């Protein structure tokens, strides 16, 4: 907004600071700044006074002190002799783990539900509507607790797997056991030579990428289209499988088995993690489904018709015309859903999953009594996670933005 005023003919008067639009915004800003700074100064001085009265200081030194508590799920080495910093790090990794896996599962569920909700199949579309509406309108905390209750109350205890005629049995060819103490799945055992198989596998991923480029160039030059999907699938599987047998099967699976009163061997996935992961994924999935549906509906029908008029097949129309445009609409809300999922993972406390909030903001805070430092540090970490995710979003948005006039 620009307002044209005559150049001042008289000298500056104090009232101009308020009534003259040239100075007014400056006045407001200075007042706002003074107010803001003094508020902050007031808060800090209060904090200093209160800390002194309590005989506390503001010091992050507690992070290097022995933690003295155990964390039941850890991705890195940790024991109760480790420091509080290490505990916070374990919690941080746990937060990232559940957020990362949650994002993947939520995307799969959300995209499937969103597409099926638009399906011509009346029954499936209704079913998906019920899923979306029921998950969206009920608090995620209730879902987390309910999933946990299903897993811990609705599943058999390990002892029910025992005996001649057990009440419960393992699933998937005796490889997976769902119990009220957690789910046990086979875990790979890496023997000598397995590194070569892994390297081969990574190289074949590189090969897929290279093939994609080659195929695209070839198509642009000649117009021929190779059966991309099958070739890529072959590159994905065959070399690694070949190398696996050449090296003499260096990777084997360690199956869980009943020993004594519990299962041993395999990977033990705790119910707390499973409940949190599933609940967050299904909850966020329902929101993603709505974004996907909205994104597809946002592309006008004329695009589909134009593509059919050009003689494109429905699958190609979807891949080349609809999806690239729909993704531009879908991705921003999708990423903000990822952000929400990450933040909602802090509800892990409800089922006892040891995430950042439960270690740094929970046990560490209670043991050391350092509320101020722990909370500030925790907020800063969450802030960094969120800002990095939204940074990625902004980068993507700028790269796909339609260039307007």
């Amino acid at each position, binding site marked *: 907004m620009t307002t044209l005023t005559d150049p001042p003919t008289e000298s500056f008067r104090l009232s101009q600071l308020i009534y003259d639009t040239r100075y007014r915004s400056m006045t407001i800003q200075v007042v706002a*700044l003074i107010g803001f700074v003094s508020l902050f100064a007031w808060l800090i001085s209060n904090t200093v006074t*209160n800390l002194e009265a309590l005989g506390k200081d503001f010091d992050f030194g507690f992070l290097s002190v022995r933690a003295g508590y155990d964390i039941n799920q850890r991705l890195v080495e940790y024991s109760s002799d480790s420091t509080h910093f290490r505990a916070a790090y374990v919690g941080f990794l746990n937060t990232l783990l559940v957020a990362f896996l949650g994002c993947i599962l939520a995307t799969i569920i959300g995209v499937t539900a969103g597409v099926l909700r638009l399906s011509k199949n009346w029954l*499936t579309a209704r079913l998906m509507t019920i899923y979306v509406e029921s998950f969206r309108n009920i608090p995620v905390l*209730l879902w987390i607790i309910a999933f946990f209750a299903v897993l811990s109350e609705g599943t058999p205890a390990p002892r029910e797997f025992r005996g001649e005629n057990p009440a419960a049995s393992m699933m998937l060819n005796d490889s997976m056991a769902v119990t009220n103490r957690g789910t046990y799945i086979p875990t790979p055992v890496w023997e000598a030579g397995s590194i070569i198989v892994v390297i081969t596998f990574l190289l074949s991923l590189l090969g897929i990428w290279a093939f994609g480029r080659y195929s695209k160039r070839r198509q642009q030059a000649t117009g021929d289209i190779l059966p991309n999907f099958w070739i890529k699938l072959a590159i994905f599987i065959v070399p690694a499988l070949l190398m696996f047998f050449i090296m003499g099967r260096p990777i084997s699976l360690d199956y869980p088995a009943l020993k004594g009163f519990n299962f041993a061997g395999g990977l033990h996935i705790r119910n707390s993690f499973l409940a949190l992961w599933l609940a967050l994924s299904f909850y966020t999935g329902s929101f993603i489904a709505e974004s996907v549906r909205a994104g597809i509906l946002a592309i006008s029908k004329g695009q589909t018709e134009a593509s059919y008029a050009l003689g494109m097949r429905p699958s190609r129309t979807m891949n080349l015309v609809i999806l690239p445009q729909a993704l531009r609409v879908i991705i921003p809300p999708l990423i903000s859903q990822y952000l929400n999922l990450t*933040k909602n993972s802090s509800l892990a406390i409800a089922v006892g999953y040891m995430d950042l909030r439960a270690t740094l903001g929970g046990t560490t805070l209670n043991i050391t009594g350092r*509320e101020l430092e722990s909370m500030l540090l925790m907020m800063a970490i*969450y802030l960094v996670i*969120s*800002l990095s995710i939204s940074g990625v979003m902004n980068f993507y948005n700028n790269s796909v933005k339609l260039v307007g006039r």
Partner: protein
Amino acid sequence: MSDFNFVRTEMLEAKEPPLTERGVVKWVRENLFSGWFNTILTLVSIYVIYLVLSSILPWLVNGIWIADSLTQCREIRDTVNGGEPSACFAVLTARWHQLVFGFFPQDMYWRPILAFILLFVALAPVLYDAAPRKLFYFTAVYPFLMVWLIWGGSVWGPVMVAAGFGVSYLAYKLVAKFSELAATIIALIAPIIWWLFFSGAVAGIIQSVIPISLYAVESKELGGFLISVVVGLAGISLSLPLGVLLALGRQSDMFIVKTMCVGFIEFIRGVPLITLLFTALLLLNYFLPKGVNFDVVIRVIIMVTLFSAAYMAETIRGGLAALPKGQYEAADSLGLDYWQAQRLIIMPQALKISIPSIVGIFIGLFKDTTLVIFIGISEMLGFTNAIRADTAWNGVYWELYIFVGLVFWICCFSMSRYSQWLERKLQTEH
């Protein structure tokens, strides 16, 4: 030509389409079995529906509504229902009042119920055009009435707080004759001075002369659905105006104001609500001068409001960005000042565009009121744990969760339906 010995002279009656091309059969063929993929989808869907219904329906239908404990429920199940799975809804019959009202004194349930009924009266003019406009006066009074009905105590406390607005208006009128600016400043400062130094004393004096009071209920006695409604309602009605201000601040040309708004919004959006609630619980004592103490419910309301206001601001900013520049220019060319333009031209349109997301944030806020369980306020989920801690009901899960889920679902679903209705009503495009 004599080859033709028969020529039809009248038209044939139109035949009905074949059986497979009409009615239910056609619909089923087109919607459920139009191809192999569709058929698979249908069969899978039917299987899923069968699976869910066959496990849940008998359990629901056999539900036992009257029993004293879970053990008794199981006895009834074994004797009357022949051991069939049966829900034990008796826990709801016995304990519904805790889930709904928390520890609110039982003989005073009429207070929250009355507040809840009056809520709809107060909301009527906001939600429906057809409601009499005069009801807006009641809407303005309602917040104070609700606080009084729920927390009780002397009626003069809320009245004196409300009087602060009257003080502000009076001060403005008195000073406006001399200077518009001074009047605005005085109108902002006067009520704060009133609230800080006078309202309590005056309320006390009037109370001693005309005592009207209800039994005072403490915040820790509130709980269940009641606390969700109180926190949700306060958060919803406070976060919208705050969100509008933040959005305008973020859009403004003033660098410092803009930076502060951006910083605030990004900070709040970057941390989980639960950390903010813990801040309110643990850290507020550090930040405030010694001796100053807030009620825990007010702390929660402030945090929830700040949290949704940041999201609201982003939503409204989207609405503002979607408005064509011509609207701003038209407002300028009419000679409207900034606030007039916002009030009359920009905001009505921007808010209309963002209705679905605004209501989405309201719904999110209402669902987030469950998080108060973590700072020691027992809302509905908290009471499901408390009820299970009683030996009589130890082991009851689904009946309680279904009740809580259903209550939230009804509230949130009706909010989203209302927003869709409003959106259709306000639609001006062809």
